[in-house]
């Protein structure tokens, strides 16, 4: 069966950030220089080819863009300024939008206004909740301090309500992500009519998913190992924070000022430091544009960094202001923190850049499935 070329696809892809999409003349250097490219899963060149020709079907069923961790070697050695690294990045954005059945992802990626409007909408919702709705139920600001001199945070942001809200948010995000992953599975594995993967293989290889989520072993295969370290630091901090906030909120959001050696505090410090470290590297990298990895920035890249940074900084502020007994400052920080965090989780995780936390490990898992597939 022959596939029809679709020259219009590139116009769509341009919105996802593919730059000089036609510069590639297919010397194959990028695929060969890439330490992650492997037999049966060759990239970037082959993916560039599909993109140039507008072969939508094969492109959407590609798992390879998720296997790329953007070390930039391909772009550095490219003889033609084709920038394969960034092309792969753009394809990840495109794929994210194709997995998303709501169509929102595409809107967010291709329209700055849409994305900003939604962020502001959620932010406003959060602010209104804290300023209008919660007070109307009797949860008010109080300038009173605890016995130790800390801010009475929980009376302003009651744990059960916040916890419930966290769970709702987590469930929404998880539902969206899971449904998108199912679509991803459908496109990559199910739809592929020539191969068949048994259920046993699905179960046998499942550990890969967990392992890859936790350590990103593929990332560590890039020649420059520093970014793997920084990323892991950031990622572990983020995961810890996420788990702590959603699952152990009562333990974490305390009014008591715990001693410094308490696990609650050092876990928080570790996560904060991890996040900050990763962020500083990424922000300075993108500003300096020295490393190819950071040379080209899409709006979504910056938005994600700015929001995460704001979240982390406001988080730090909450902590400092709380233990130092500065109620108003604490409340303002808390509301800001939530006003950034909520849209970030709701928009970035299922629809935008952050979805990679799920797609990447799944991609590795699916790759393994494909390797084990038998010809039908």
């Amino acid at each position, binding site marked *: 069966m022959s596939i029809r070329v679709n020259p219009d696809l590139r116009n769509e892809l341009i919105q996802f950030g593919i730059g000089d999409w036609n510069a590639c*003349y*297919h*010397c*194959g*250097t*990028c*695929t*060969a*220089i890439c330490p992650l*490219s*492997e*037999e049966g899963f*060759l990239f970037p*060149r*082959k993916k560039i080819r599909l993109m140039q020709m507008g072969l939508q079907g094969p492109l959407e069923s590609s798992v390879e863009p998720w296997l790329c961790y953007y070390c930039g070697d391909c772009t550095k*050695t490219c*003889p*033609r*300024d084709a920038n394969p690294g960034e092309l792969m990045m753009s394809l990840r954005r495109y794929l994210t939008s194709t997995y998303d059945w709501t169509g929102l992802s595409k809107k967010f990626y291709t329209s700055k206004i849409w994305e900003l409007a939604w962020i502001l909408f959620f932010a406003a919702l959060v602010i209104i909740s804290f300023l209008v709705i919660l007070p109307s139920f009797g949860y008010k600001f109080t300038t009173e301090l605890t016995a130790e001199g800390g801010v009475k945070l929980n009376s302003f942001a009651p744990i059960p309500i916040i916890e419930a809200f966290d769970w709702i948010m987590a469930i929404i995000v998880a539902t969206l992500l899971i449904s998108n992953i199912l679509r991803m599975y459908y496109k990559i594995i199910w739809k592929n009519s020539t191969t068949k993967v048994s259920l046993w293989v699905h179960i046998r290889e499942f550990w890969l998913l967990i392992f890859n989520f936790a350590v990103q072993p593929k990332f560590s295969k890039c020649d420059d190992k520093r970014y793997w370290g920084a990323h892991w630091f950031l990622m572990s901090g983020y995961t810890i924070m996420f788990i702590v906030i959603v699952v152990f909120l009562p333990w974490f959001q305390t009014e008591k000022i715990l001693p410094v050696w308490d696990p609650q505090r050092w876990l928080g410090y570790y996560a904060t430091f991890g996040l900050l470290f990763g962020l500083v590297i990424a922000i300075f990298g993108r500003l300096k544009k020295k490393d190819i990895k950071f040379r080209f920035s899409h709006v979504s890249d910056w938005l994600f960094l700015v929001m995460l940074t704001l979240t982390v900084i406001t988080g730090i502020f909450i902590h400092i202001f709380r233990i130092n007994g500065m109620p108003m400052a604490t409340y303002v920080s808390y509301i800001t923190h939530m006003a950034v965090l909520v849209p970030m989780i709701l928009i970035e995780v299922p629809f935008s850049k952050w979805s990679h936390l799920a797609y990447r490990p799944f991609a590795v898992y699916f790759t393994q499935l494909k390797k084990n597939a038998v010809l039908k």
Partner: protein
Amino acid sequence: MDHKDSIGVFFFDLMGTVNDPINYSELAKYTLGFQQVLQAWHYSDFPWNEETIRKKIETNDLSKIIVAGALPGTVKTLFSKAMSMAGKNPSSVILVSFNEYGIWSDKEIERAKALLICAIRDIPYEIAAMPGDAPVNPATMIIGGGISGIQAALEIANGNTLVYLIEKTGTIGGKMATFDKTFPTLDCAACILTPKMVEVNQHPNIRLMSYCEVREVTGDAGNFTVKLLQKARKVNVTTCIGCGTCAEKCPATAPSEFDSGTTMRKAIYMPFPQAVPNKYLIDAESCIYLKTGKCRACVKACPVPDCINLDEPDKEVLIKVGNIIVATGYKTFDAARMEQYGYGKYPNVLAALEFERLLNASGPTGGNIHYRTQDKKGNWIFSTEAEKPEKLAIIHCVGSRDKNYNKYCSRVCCMYSLKFAHLILDKLPEAEVFEYFIDMRSFGKGYEEFYERIKEEGVSIIRGKTAKVEAKNGKLLIRGEDILRSELIENIVDMVILSTGLEPGEDTKKISEMLGIPTSDGGWLEEANYNTDPTGTFRGGIMLAGTCQGPKDIPDSVAQGSAAAARVIQNILRGRVTKDISGLTLEEIENHINEISPIQV
């Protein structure tokens, strides 16, 4: 009648800004000074498309359009279409291509104006811009004794006029002399070149000046005065009998330039056995006497009295010539710049010219392919005692078609790589040969047939340039992508040959400044007109031949050598030479146009 034309001028500039951008408003003002010109627009004035341009044509009732600027051809069809649709003659779209006439910045604005007036008055620039003639000195200087220079020298000398052939090194022959076989007919380079070299040496009309450099050129077309530096050979060319006793006794060695450093030569040496002139010379840089004042082993050994004079100084020589042909040739890309291929790091990663010598019967191994190994002193050498490689890979486009090095295609590498593959199989019939390429450019007469033949011979020709060469277990691991088979290549081979591209010869920049010939992208000397005058320059009496103008193969270099000679012979037969086009002023061109076609009022 041209004065009844109603002309619209459109300025187009694809090249973007340069340091000294062309002042388009001044050009517009200039064109509006002609009564035929109704309007002038710059491409930034309004969006150019079919509709807008058609409207301009219709509202101004334009009968002719001039599109001027850098690469105006990219929009020409748009204007033709608009003219057609407006019911006008689509062929009345005149292009004024700045880049074609060497206009890159505001410095050349006068020439831009001259081109514009020619377009407005409908007179070809080539006819309007006629610099006057000057009497010509029948002697000719040719700079560079490679195949192009040799060919040009022989052509001119056969027309019974005097030629000075200036060669920087100790022998003529150039790069071609170092080759083993030539593609696609595989006749040996020496077999076809050495007779020509001999002919040059024996020709009564050729003054061969080897080991000689051009220092300064003054004067104008027809009457140049050239200051040459005759470097001291320190061996008397007339009395040296070429016996080689001196070299036997000489204690100092240096890498042989002729053998691309694959062998060592002495400080007193003959570049290669068939060198012309077939005489020895001393390389001052490696000579022990010249460094320390002691040795003189060669003088003691020489059987001819007073033949070697170690204290001979360099001399300045003045010659007067009427025409100059530049044939300074090329150098090969330094493969060490591409670290990923490990040239200079792994001894058995070879550059093309090194491999060419390895294949050559007069090369380090007598034409047998052996590994590069370490001798007792630890130097890496080629020796027939070493093993023979069994798997060899040839990587195309090294340093070419790559924005990180040279953007241009070097034109010859595909073919010489195919030739290598054939010669390897000829010498090592059991060997496996791999060629890694991007596009196979076998374009010439008999080239495609050669490519087909190499494929039939069992060479693995693989699309995909390969990314790097690494050492593995004492062998070389090549990583690449086999594009057509969709496979990752991890090929372990014994020897890697890098098909290095061509770059302008070391002295091209110097020559360009000395003679006032601009260089184009990539540093090649710029011809007067890409299509119609590939061997001419903007300067009268100065011609280009061979690879100094751009990469080319032997037949094309030979043709250019002869072509450059044609203009010289023509000048001599005519007794006059056309002066510099670059010397013409705008006023002179304007006056000439008025002479050819007076304005009728």
